[in-house]
């Protein structure tokens, strides 16, 4: 037990120093001094609650994804039936209950219709995204499969994460963290961001842009009451537009979506000085836009963003170059936001902010300072107490305590972003210092007892370390259980606390048991004391 060959000592010191020295750059930074640039510089990462910044949790609604799939399927089915040779006549398509169902006008078409539908239902690989059943010989019912739906949600979320990343990058914020969480959530963390209003406005915008022809035959009284004539949809005007509060009927089919843009930039109208957004379609989209505008000169078309009509200008002449302007009561900022949103693509699903935490920068600095003072004072008092209680053995405890603090910080510095120091983490650090002495107390008390039972010095020390190790082990396992559960269930700051506890458990066993045993063994060998004061 007390035998420490040189290689073992060298190895222990190597581990200790490798961890403890890594804490130095962070400590030097805390005092405000400069760390020499030639040396490696592992730094303890600070959590958002200490560094200041914004944490935003976004959630998507899976029902919306399901609804969109139904709509897409609706369009595909119509197109397939229309394009069939000869055309297959079908009745209205109902999408109620999350299923698609429609009647065939002629039951003889059943096999042809089925053949046309099968390619639409297949997903990737062998999985089928929809199941088809035929009721009463004429009614087709298409039901989405759970696997297909799950895949659609998954795809939508990875696209959404990408879009969120692009938008945040466009804002020019530094080092944002964007992580998928669970099935439907995205966590966005932006260190240093003090006012997340702009960010939230940007992320809250789905940026689904549509150009649709205005239905001029609709009666204004019907539209006002929300009665849509067949083949049309009603959209309200956007907030801030001159027609706010009114609605507009547009043709359901034959429009263009704004998801085929190559660029979007904010600009101003040279005549009126009003902010607007210049967009550029890709070649395919440009072609379709040219067709639409050529066929409908002198008719109004609506520019619809996220289900709200921005404006409904007249098509004065065909627009052939694939470039267009979106006008509609913008401020310079909202025009810029829309340009960013359009450039980064539309979100496949709306995202709602369900949790937001923003921390100012001063609070963190204040907390670090107070935490450091509390740690130093606590450590100082504790060291006095240990020396008073255990004499020479207390001195060893003190040395192991200091190394313990350095090693925890050092390991965190090596881990970098994986283990950020948070506000509760500071408490964890101070607490770990208090708890780390427990191992030494157990050992020292045991040595004391063994001496009282008449054992000789070396045997008493050996028995002390051996008998105490069982309780030390069990106690640390229970603390690990608590810390792991905290890590699994906790959010940001609490995870930081759990990380400190877990690292602290390992380093405190190492410093309080292994290192002190090495020191005590060395002393016993050198001094060969006949008695120990304990």
């Amino acid at each position, binding site marked *: 037990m007390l035998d420490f060959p040189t290689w073992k000592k060298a190895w222990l010191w190597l581990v200790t120093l490798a961890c403890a020295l890594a804490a130095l750059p962070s400590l030097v930074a805390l005092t405000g001094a400069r760390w020499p640039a030639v040396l490696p510089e592992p730094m303890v990462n600070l959590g958002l609650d200490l560094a200041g910044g914004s944490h935003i949790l976004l959630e998507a609604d899976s029902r919306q994804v399901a609804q969109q799939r139904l709509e897409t399927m609706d369009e595909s089915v119509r197109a397939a039936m229309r394009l069939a040779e000869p055309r297959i006549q079908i009745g209205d398509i109902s999408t109620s209950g999350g299923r698609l169902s429609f009647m065939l006008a002629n039951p003889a078409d059943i096999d042809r219709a089925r053949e046309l539908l099968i390619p639409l239902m297949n997903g990737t690989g062998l999985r089928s995204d929809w199941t088809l059943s035929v009721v009463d010989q004429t009614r087709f019912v298409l039901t989405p499969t759970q696997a297909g739906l799950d895949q659609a949600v998954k795809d939508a979320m990875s696209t959404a994460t990408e879009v969120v990343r692009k938008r945040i990058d466009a804002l020019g914020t530094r080092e944002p963290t964007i992580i998928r969480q669970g099935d439907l959530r995205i966590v966005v963390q932006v260190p240093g961001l003090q006012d997340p209003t702009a960010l939230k406005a940007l992320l809250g915008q789905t940026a689904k842009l549509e150009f649709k022809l205005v239905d001029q035959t609709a009666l204004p009284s019907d539209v006002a009451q929300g009665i849509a004539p067949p083949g049309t949809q009603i959209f309200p005007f956007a907030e801030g537009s001159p027609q706010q509060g009114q609605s507009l009927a547009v043709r359901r089919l034959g429009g263009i979506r704004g998801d085929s843009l190559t660029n979007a930039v904010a600009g101003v109208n040279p005549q009126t000085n009003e902010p607007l957004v210049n967009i550029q379609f890709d070649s395919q989209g440009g072609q379709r836009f040219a067709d639409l505008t050529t066929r409908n000169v002198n008719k109004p078309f609506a520019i619809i963003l996220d289900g709200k009509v921005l404006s409904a200008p007249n098509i004065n002449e065909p627009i052939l170059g694939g470039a267009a302007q979106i006008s509609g009561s913008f401020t310079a900022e909202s025009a810029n936001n829309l340009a960013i949103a359009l450039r980064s693509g539309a979100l496949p699903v709306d995202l*709602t902010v369900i949790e937001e935490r923003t921390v100012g920068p001063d609070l963190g600095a204040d907390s670090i300072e*107070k935490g450091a003072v509390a740690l130093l004072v606590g450590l100082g008092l504790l060291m006095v107490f240990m020396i008073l209680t255990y004499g020479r053995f207390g001195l060893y405890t003190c040395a192991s305590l200091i190394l313990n603090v350095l090693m925890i910080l050092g390991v965190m510095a090596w881990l970098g972003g994986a283990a950020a120091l948070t506000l509760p983490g500071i408490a964890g650090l101070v*607490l770990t210092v208090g708890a780390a002495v427990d191992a030494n107390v157990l050992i020292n008390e045991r040595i004391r007892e063994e001496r009282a039972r008449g054992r000789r010095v070396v045997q008493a020390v050996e028995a002390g370390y051996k008998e105490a190790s069982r309780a030390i082990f069990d106690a640390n396992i229970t603390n690990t259980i608590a810390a792991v559960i905290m890590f699994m269930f906790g959010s940001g700051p609490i995870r930081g606390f759990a990380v400190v506890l877990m690292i602290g458990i390992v380093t405190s066993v190492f410093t309080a048991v292994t290192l002190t045993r090495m020191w005590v063994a060395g002393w016993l060998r050198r001094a060969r004391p006949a008695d120990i004061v304990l």
Partner: protein
Amino acid sequence: MKLLKLIPDNTNIRFLRWRIPFYAVSLLLMAASVGLLFTKGLNLGVDFVGGQMIRMTFVGQPAAPLADLRARIDRLGYGEPIIQQFGGPNAVSVRMRLPEEGAERAAVAARMTTQITATVRQAYPRVRIDGVDSVSGKASDELFSDGMLALVLAAIGISIYIWIRFEWQFGVGALFALVHDVTLTLGLFSLTQMEFDLNIVAALLTLIGYSLNDNIVVYDRVRENLMKYRKMPIAELLDLSVNETLSRTVVTSLSLLITLVALLILGPDVIFGFTAAITMGIFVGTYSSIYMATPILIWLGLKSDSFVPAESAADRQERIARGEA
């Protein structure tokens, strides 16, 4: 050099003689805590009930102008604010309700933050906005259920570990001591109406871990003594175990308290509640390891031979053959 001895050698306090009155008091306190939780309840923060909390510090002022602040924010028409001191006397948290789910909520939250901070800044130019927390009802429900699940899982996980390492009586004893510690700490939070947020759940998890340290040390000694003194009556043996480990219990608890009190007095204001919960837990935990977790072993039927390997049938026959009782 003469060393400090808080507990003299050969201390022999007969703790277990008083186990019934102490149990009675503890059970009463637990009942009172549960009663408080049902009547007064916990002052749940936005983490658990949803809503919005803005923290601000009135730099350079001795105390926050609570009444004026309340009046000004009330006038904005978002409902009545809950304003509480938070850390130092010049720091407050302003809590507001948010409308339930829907797209509206996020917009209202954003507008509310802007208006409240603008209003306060206008009246007190030197105010420092320390943070804004905005949690939807859905997110807060999840945080609450996750937190409670974590507590239950930790308590059960640790008890199972102790059951495996010791005997089932020890597992039950540990679980009972845990419930005792957590209940009394919750009772304190209900009594003082300190804000109960996510951090406090972390504190409860921590105190579960640490208060068990004491249990384990005593239990470990009980196990050792059971194997050493097979004939000793169980109550006497438990007393001996508690006394033998008493010095360690006192020194360790004192060490933890030294650092915790330093943290309470000098540490960051924002984690005062968190530190208070752990400090309370250390007190209660030390007491419960002596008076809750240990006597229960007697009532759970721990016998002097609990750790003696069971006698095989062959051994038994041989013993009977030898004519031993």
